[in-house]
């Protein structure tokens, strides 16, 4: 039986940063979890792009909901603007980009629900690295 897993969207100023974290999550959390990067502008510059974020959210949603991680500043602002225009559901989590994404993706890979995955990402704020 296929169970829908929570999807992850990575909003970054940099396409390379978002794609690099996506590659990391594939190793840590298996390829079963859908992880969609949304980094950089449409012209490949550093920045954030509302249309790319919206499309990534759509691709990440397989029925169990979507957690969105943002790297800095305008990535948060642009994501909030996108979410304001979408139906309620996708959750933007206040968490460190890499650690939050790892915590969320690992929990998503266990089949955990949206609230649990979002909490895991949020808890990453307070986790010491060593």
């Amino acid at each position, binding site marked *: 039986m296929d169970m829908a897993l929570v999807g992850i969207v990575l909003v970054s100023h940099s396409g390379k940063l978002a794609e690099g974290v996506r590659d*990391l999550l594939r*190793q*840590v959390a298996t390829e079963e979890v859908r992880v969609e990067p949304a980094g950089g502008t449409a012209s490949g510059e550093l920045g954030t792009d509302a249309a790319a974020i919206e499309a990534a959210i759509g691709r990440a949603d397989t029925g169990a909901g979507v957690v969105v991680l943002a790297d800095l500043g305008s990535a948060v602002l642009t994501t909030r603007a996108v979410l304001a225009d979408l139906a309620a559901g996708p959750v933007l989590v206040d968490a460190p980009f890499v650690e939050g994404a790892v*915590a969320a993706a*690992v929990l998503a890979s266990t089949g955990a629900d949206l609230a649990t995955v979002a909490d*895991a990402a949020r808890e990453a704020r307070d*986790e010491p690295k060593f």
Partner: protein
Amino acid sequence: MNPSSEITVVLPAALHARPAGAVVRAAAGFEASVEVRHDGRTASARSALRLMSLGAGAGSTVVVAAAGVDADDAAAAVAAVLREAS
């Protein structure tokens, strides 16, 4: 009282990101709560970040401790993942 189970494992490889993720997935299949202990510190097997923060290196010893109705199976499953870490 809940049954409990402890298994000691010598890690063939460091408890880094990939094995930490595998431990969380293994433990998630059981009702028992599972912890990994290393060098006086304890990490829940529900948190990949906490498991990584133990800093358990290759060749070091960890204890998998499970408590709950299926503690034996949970500890065995997590220990198996740690023994296969690479």
